[in-house]
């Protein structure tokens, strides 16, 4: 295993310590339990947003803490959802008196640990709402299964809901907005390579030189299907097709196109994918009015990409454009 770490046990703690040192003006890092809050938390009277999940997806979530986005993020061990005490302490630390929204990616572990944290917080009369993000079209949805995974739409939901909370929306309103983003966003991802979890020391799966995984999540897990390697244009079609069909996105829609790197795919390649995705949507009469391109929700050093498309309306566009000041996303300030 080739990694810039000191030991698998310390990588998360040392990494968030570095994050805190680099962005002490924006965030504050708390340890045992580990969580990251806005430097100015709690913000009196503002609805607070708390998210979290396993580490290894950086900049998500810790890099999205700051004005106009999250109030707190709880990093678990690599690819392991955080523990209830982390979310419980974070919730208490950022509660500004108008309630706390938990933005939860739909993974059994995340959902259950956030539920337990919410129970603890509510027991102390903190008003907590939880919204579960499940935008991954690679997973067939069903009442009898764990359902779809939460992936790219999480980043967009955190930015958009953060803007609404900053603007003074109520907990009910921010929760409703979060459901709206989830309802209008769809994603799908693929991997050219696996990734190596530090405490495992070897790639989670082996992928031959001429094959790729389609329909992966963000935890280095294998995808729905393994196929022969294809060109960037073909891969973009394979990912975008199911996304467009699923919502469905229709001619005349205005959308945000988010092309994400799983970590190891460089921008040179990512923009080749963006170019094709933009072309396909445009040909279908779908207007790309906002874009996000880069590594924002990653699986360590995995090479691959995921595409997320979010249907926009004036409200979502305005909130997307609103100022944001975090280590990972910043504009308007």
């Amino acid at each position, binding site marked *: 295993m080739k990694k810039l770490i000191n030991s698998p046990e310390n990588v998360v703690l040392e990494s968030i310590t570095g994050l805190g040192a680099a962005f002490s003006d924006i965030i504050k890092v708390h340890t045992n*339990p580990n969580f990251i809050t806005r430097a100015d938390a709690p913000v009196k009277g503002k609805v607070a947003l708390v998210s979290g999940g*396993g580490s290894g997806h950086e900049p998500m979530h810790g890099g999205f803490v700051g004005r106009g986005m999250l109030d707190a993020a709880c990093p*678990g*061990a*690599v*690819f*392991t*959802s*955080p*523990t*209830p*005490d982390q979310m419980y302490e974070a919730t208490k630390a950022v509660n500004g008196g108008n309630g706390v929204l938990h933005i939860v990616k739909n*993974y*059994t*572990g995340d959902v*259950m*640990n956030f*539920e*337990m944290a919410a129970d603890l917080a509510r027991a102390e009369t903190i008003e907590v709402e939880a919204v579960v993000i499940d935008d991954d079209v*690679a*997973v*067939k949805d069903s009442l*009898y*299964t*764990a359902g779809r*995974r939460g992936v790219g739409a999480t980043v967009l939901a955190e930015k958009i809901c953060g803007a609404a909370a900053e603007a003074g929306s109520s907990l009910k309103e921010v929760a409703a907005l979060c459901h709206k983003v989830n309802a209008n966003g769809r994603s799908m991802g693929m991997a050219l390579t696996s990734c190596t*979890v530090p*405490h*495992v020391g070897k790639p*989670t*799966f082996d992928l031959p030189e001429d094959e790729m995984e389609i329909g992966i*999540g963000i*935890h*280095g*897990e*294998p995808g*729905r*299907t393994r196929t022969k390697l294809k060109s960037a244009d073909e891969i973009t079609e394979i990912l975008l097709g199911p996304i467009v069909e699923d919502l469905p996105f229709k001619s005349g829609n205005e959308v945000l196109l988010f092309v994400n790197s799983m970590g190891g795919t460089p921008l040179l390649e990512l923009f080749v994918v963006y170019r094709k995705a933009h072309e396909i949507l445009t040909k279908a009469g779908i207007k790309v009015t906002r874009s996000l391109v880069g590594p924002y929700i990653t699986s360590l050093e995995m090479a691959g990409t995921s595409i997320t498309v979010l249907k926009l309306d004036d409200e979502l566009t305005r909130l997307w454009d609103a100022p944001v000041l975090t280590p990972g996303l910043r504009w308007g300030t």
Partner: protein
Amino acid sequence: MSNISKDKFISWIERYAGHIADQKDYLTELDSAIGDADHGANMHRGFQAVLAKKADLQNKDVGGLFKIVAMTLIQTVGGASGALYGTFFLQASTAAGAKPELSPAEFGTVLDKGLAGIVLRGKAAVGDKTMVDALQPAIKAYKYSIGAGEDLQKALESATVAAEEGLRSTIPIVARKGRASYLGERSAGHADPGATSTVLLFRAAAETLSL
């Protein structure tokens, strides 16, 4: 039939922590195939933390003992298994209460309550390819055996056998719960990591509780 003392339960937990330590890499390997390669590390982190609390464990009744195990797992494991095994011991602790020891029959009820907690949290049924596939039949076998007047050792052994059968039954299944469900058809042909760690829980019991 003799009761199970608190000290026996302590040996049970310690033995289980030992099995987890031994099987850590194997559990992670299973989780690599249909999950995210952390089940072994998760369980090991949790039970090492439990061992570190050995002092506190000593001066507690059975309920208090399980409570410490529960809170420690909940606060150190994370993931699905942390919430689930944590809930299991939390419910078991409530059921056991302030007793210094449990009768084999009482232990059956305690296990039942633990299982109920897991099902309430995880909403999984037998056949979903989860730890429930091993836990549910194991407890059923244990209670049947005790009800039939067999001794504790016999009951724990048949529970272990049932857990192992339950584990084997997870192999062909296409998962409906947990991460493995994201793989769809591809999840078939692999044993469930959580069901595997559940087998170890009963094996440890059979090796400690009745002696």
